[in-house]
């Protein structure tokens, strides 16, 4: 679709700011990375509207640094911004979610037969993990980042990533087993 020529239409922020070339580059970056970032935010929040908002906010945060040429690894910056935005919004919601999951029949909307539901159940359990563990697991296994790369995105040491991952896996495994026994 975008072969040959790149469309000349300017993005919305172009009208309101004093920037040219960086805006062009940034537009391309938004087009190229938004789907994946929204997926990341969705996995971290479990809520699509919230995910979209978090991604829009993350782009806005990164933009001002990007236009001044202070960003060298854009995709890492964006991931970091998404993670931080989500984390800021999310803290109190964790409690609510845990209670909901314990109280009622989990995700009773659909039966646990096919794989689609399996993944829903897995991610419902993921959403009850502490956000730090969930983020580490998601970046490591869904985004397929190495321990080092995950550490850079989170701004922590690789050893911290390692322990968050192993604790997250352990807790998740425990929760899955427990809910299996209930059935």
């Amino acid at each position, binding site marked *: 679709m975008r072969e040959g020529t790149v469309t000349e239409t300017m993005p919305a922020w*172009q009208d*309101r700011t004093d920037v*040219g070339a*960086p805006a062009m580059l940034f537009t391309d970056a938004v087009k190229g990375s938004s789907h994946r970032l929204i997926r990341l935010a969705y996995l971290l929040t479990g809520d699509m509207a919230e995910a979209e908002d978090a991604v829009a906010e993350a782009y806005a945060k990164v933009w001002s640094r990007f236009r001044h040429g202070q960003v060298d690894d854009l995709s890492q910056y964006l991931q970091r911004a998404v993670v931080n935005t989500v984390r800021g919004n999310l803290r109190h919601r964790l409690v609510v979610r845990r209670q909901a999951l314990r109280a009622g029949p989990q995700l009773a909307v659909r039966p646990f037969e096919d794989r689609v539901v399996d*993944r829903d159940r897995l991610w419902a359990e993921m959403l009850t993990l502490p956000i730090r563990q969930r983020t580490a697991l998601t970046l490591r296994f869904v985004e397929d980042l190495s321990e080092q790369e995950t550490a850079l995105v989170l701004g922590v040491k690789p050893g911290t990533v390692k322990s968050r991952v192993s604790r997250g896996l352990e807790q998740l495994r425990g929760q899955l087993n427990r809910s299996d026994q209930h059935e």
Partner: protein
Amino acid sequence: MNDLERLIGESGREMSDRVSVPGDLQERIAARIVKRRSARRARALTGAVVLVVLAVGLAILTNHNHSNGTRVTFTAPTAPTQPGATASPSGTSPPGTSRTTSGLTATSASTIGKGVSPQPCRTAMLSASLTNSQGAAGTLYSHLVFHNVSTTSCTVNGYPGVSFVDGAGHQIGAPAQRAPGYGGAVTVGPGQSAGAVFALHDSYVSTASNCASTTAAGLRIYPPNETTAQFLPGQFTVCANAAANGSASVSAVTALANLPA
């Protein structure tokens, strides 16, 4: 146990099918950028007001001590203009108009008695050229030089935007990627120059499978942070497919002395 790791990875990636990019994402980002900016501006404004009040207060005090009966007059600075209201989309406004310092900042600066620092260079103040081209292992390195043709000093800070265009001025393929390295503002006096390293990756063009190579008629060059471009004619073999974005790269602008010989 690797099963759970794999399950997380696979099921997480499968969630892609639930995700769609909202059509108004760019507008939403823009709205948030504007919101963040006005919040920043409000903070800056408060700071400037405090400065002005302090300066005026000092002036009144000193005046009071030195001479009796002289009135100190203070003209309120004009409010900064809203960029959105005046910026022209085509970027044809004459140099300086959309970027003049707000009355407030100018007032506080002159009240305190500091010199005026150079403004960012506008496209019309600069003349772009390519010099010092030399090939090395499939890459042609050049200096992308910005010559200050105006009569005042100005600053250049950041990455220029460089893309390839055909004879009709339509962009070909992806813009030059940003290469890390230099950074910081460079002040360019009248008649002086600053420059960036511009690299053409011939080996990429000849090997990328999705390249669709073609010949460009020239470069469209945006000086850092500018919305108006200059055209620099020249024949370049580049990838027409925007997804094959390795045809060229460009560094941030730095002093000429910093560029490799």
